[in-house]
């Protein structure tokens, strides 16, 4: 078998392998753990690396060559009534799995030293890989019920990992809250799927997108899906679980949690723009000669919710004294920016401004995951070195932890949208598109971004600057594996910041086009042009 044939076979089966490799890895981890701890760590890193390689292979084909990959589990006959699951990978799916692959790989490299002192690491790594498999499944599947299954896999493994430090009562409480919220959100999503299945006898997203008539029941399913996914994504006022979960989980787990939150956001995009894409311009009300359409109404509501999310996130972050909770509230504000772009994209759907908003929102998804992820890793590094999480008890750490300080500065500048970091380019697109809807909203968004900078300047001052505190005299820089993990994310942030045009043209635009034109996604399954 030559290399070309092997790579072609890998490419053909890559949608299934991206889920299967971490899933198989999860089941093998406890067995390998019995042989040797180091071997287990190497095995987990190799599993994450292999998954990342498959993601690169598939994404390259989808994003650069413009192909849509369809992978069928079960009967190949489209008219057959047998159970069949379909993975469908277009530009948006490919974009999302890139984020997932980066986060999972960095998380397992970081875990090597960060979790070294803990017991039960066979369970930890099993759950990490299970969570990764669930997250990739959510991002790749083209089947609604299958999406629900992967959502549940992710939720259960996330809950166990949030509560991993069971000796800390608050971690267990955060895990409990997370599972309650996730289960209720997932139940409503399942209810919506049942409604759609009852009406159209289909679970496939493309088939549903082609069939939806926007009936009374479809409207109910739409609301249940939006509300359930928005809660999983952490939109205000349904965000309260997020600081608890992000704040209490080990930093490496929080990094993948950011990815699972993004997967819920992706599903929200999919529901709005692909499944209900044909109904978005449906008239809702007629007032005089003015017709109010669904996209206008929903777009305005989402923009309002996004602005509230940004304001609440930033204001709450400003008053926190716990390192990780501060970043968690800032992460909520960042999700608000993505939601702002979704609202603007819906509001101006089909126009160049709508497309610009979509590009901004999609670009900000990856930037948010990287920037917030790096900050969480820095928070974890400080906890590792000092065993402190309260900003009130920190200070002068820049003297002892030079590299960590540099990584925090990179994260700080990126998350606040400071040029030349990656956050600036995506926020610029969002500001411009929202300015066209209402300039005041753009001003509020810019002011909140400045406040976000103020939040992290406070964190930087409290933790890294100030006089040398005698208690931290013996504090040393964190081990190499943690530095490498933070360095990897920092390099990607700088690369994305320096070449935004390259990233937008090659990764973001295909994803935005995939969302804006749902006809390609539908025709791949249903047939036609």
């Amino acid at each position: 078998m030559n290399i070309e044939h092997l790579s072609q076979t890998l490419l053909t089966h890559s949608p299934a392998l991206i889920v299967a490799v971490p899933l198989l890895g999860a089941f093998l981890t406890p067995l390998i753990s019995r042989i040797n701890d180091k071997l287990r760590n190497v095995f987990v890193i190799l599993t994450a690396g292999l998954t990342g390689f498959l993601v690169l292979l598939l994404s390259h084909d989808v994003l650069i060559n413009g192909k849509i990959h369809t992978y069928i589990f079960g009967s190949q006959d489209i008219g057959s009534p047998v159970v069949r699951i379909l993975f469908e990978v277009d530009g948006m799916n490919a974009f999302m799995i890139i984020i997932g692959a980066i986060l999972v790989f960095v998380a397992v490299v970081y875990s090597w030293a960060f979790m070294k002192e803990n017991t039960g690491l066979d369970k930890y790594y099993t759950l990490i890989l299970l969570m990764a498999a669930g997250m990739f499944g959510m991002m790749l599947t083209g089947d609604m019920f299958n999406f629900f299954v992967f959502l549940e896999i992710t939720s259960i493994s996330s809950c166990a990992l949030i509560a991993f430090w069971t000796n800390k009562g608050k971690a267990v409480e955060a895990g409990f809250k997370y599972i309650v919220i996730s289960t209720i959100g997932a139940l409503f999503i399942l209810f919506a799927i049942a409604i759609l299945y009852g009406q159209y006898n289909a679970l496939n997203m493309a088939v549903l997108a082609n069939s939806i008539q926007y009936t009374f029941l479809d409207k109910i399913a739409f609301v249940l899906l939006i509300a359930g996914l928005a809660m999983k994504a952490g939109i205000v006022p349904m965000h309260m679980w997020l600081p608890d979960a992000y704040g209490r989980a080990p930093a490496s787990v929080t990094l993948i949690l950011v990815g699972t939150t993004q997967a819920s956001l992706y599903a929200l995009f999919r529901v709005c723009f692909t499944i209900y894409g044909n109904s978005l311009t449906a008239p809702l009300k007629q007032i005089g000669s003015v017709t109010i359409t669904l996209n206008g109404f929903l777009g305005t509501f989402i923009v309002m919710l996004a602005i509230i999310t940004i304001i609440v996130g930033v204001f709450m972050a400003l008053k926190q004294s716990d390192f990780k909770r501060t970043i968690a509230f800032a992460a909520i504000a960042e999700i608000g920016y993505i939601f702002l772009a979704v609202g603007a994209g819906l509001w101006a759907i089909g126009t160049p401004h709508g497309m610009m908003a979509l590009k901004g929102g999609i670009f900000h998804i990856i930037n948010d995951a990287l920037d917030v992820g790096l900050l969480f890793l820095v928070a974890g590094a400080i906890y590792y070195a000092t065993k402190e999480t309260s900003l009130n008890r920190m200070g002068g750490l820049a003297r002892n932890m030079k590299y960590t300080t540099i990584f925090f500065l990179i994260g700080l500048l990126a998350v606040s949208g400071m040029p030349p970091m990656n956050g600036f380019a995506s926020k610029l697109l969002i500001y411009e598109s929202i300015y066209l809807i209402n300039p005041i909203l753009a001003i509020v968004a810019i002011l909140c971004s400045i406040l976000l900078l103020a939040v992290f300047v406070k964190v930087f001052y409290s933790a890294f600057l100030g006089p040398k505190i005698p208690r931290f005299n013996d504090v040393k820089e964190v081990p190499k594996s943690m530095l490498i993990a933070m360095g990897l994310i920092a390099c990607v942030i700088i690369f994305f910041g320096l070449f935004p045009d390259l990233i937008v043209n090659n990764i973001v635009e295909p994803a935005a086009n995939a969302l804006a034109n749902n006809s390609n996604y539908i025709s791949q399954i249903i047939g036609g042009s």
Partner: protein
Amino acid sequence: MITWESFLETFETGSGFWNPLIWITAIIVAFLIIYILRGYGKKEYKENTEQTKVFLSGNPEYEKEQMHIKGSNVYWGFTESLKWVYKTLDKMHTGNVSDYILWFVIIMGILFILVGVI
């Protein structure tokens, strides 16, 4: 296909443009100018003399840990003047999981009204 030229292209946003490489060049030039100007300054700094000792209006110097302004005291003025906002926000964040679900139900209700189900 990604070419070397594509790395240097300016990012067009629709109404504006952004090129980080030009921005970085401008920043480097600005720093160089500042560095040159700095060279013209007087060199009066002498290490380990009275000049470098801490002076707090004649008061004794506190312990290092007491000298550092704690995280929750930074922006005290901001949070104090917006106390009314924070009171409302604190009321929202009860930490009670039943309240989390209540907010979910409220948002779902609003969405039902907006979409036209109710």
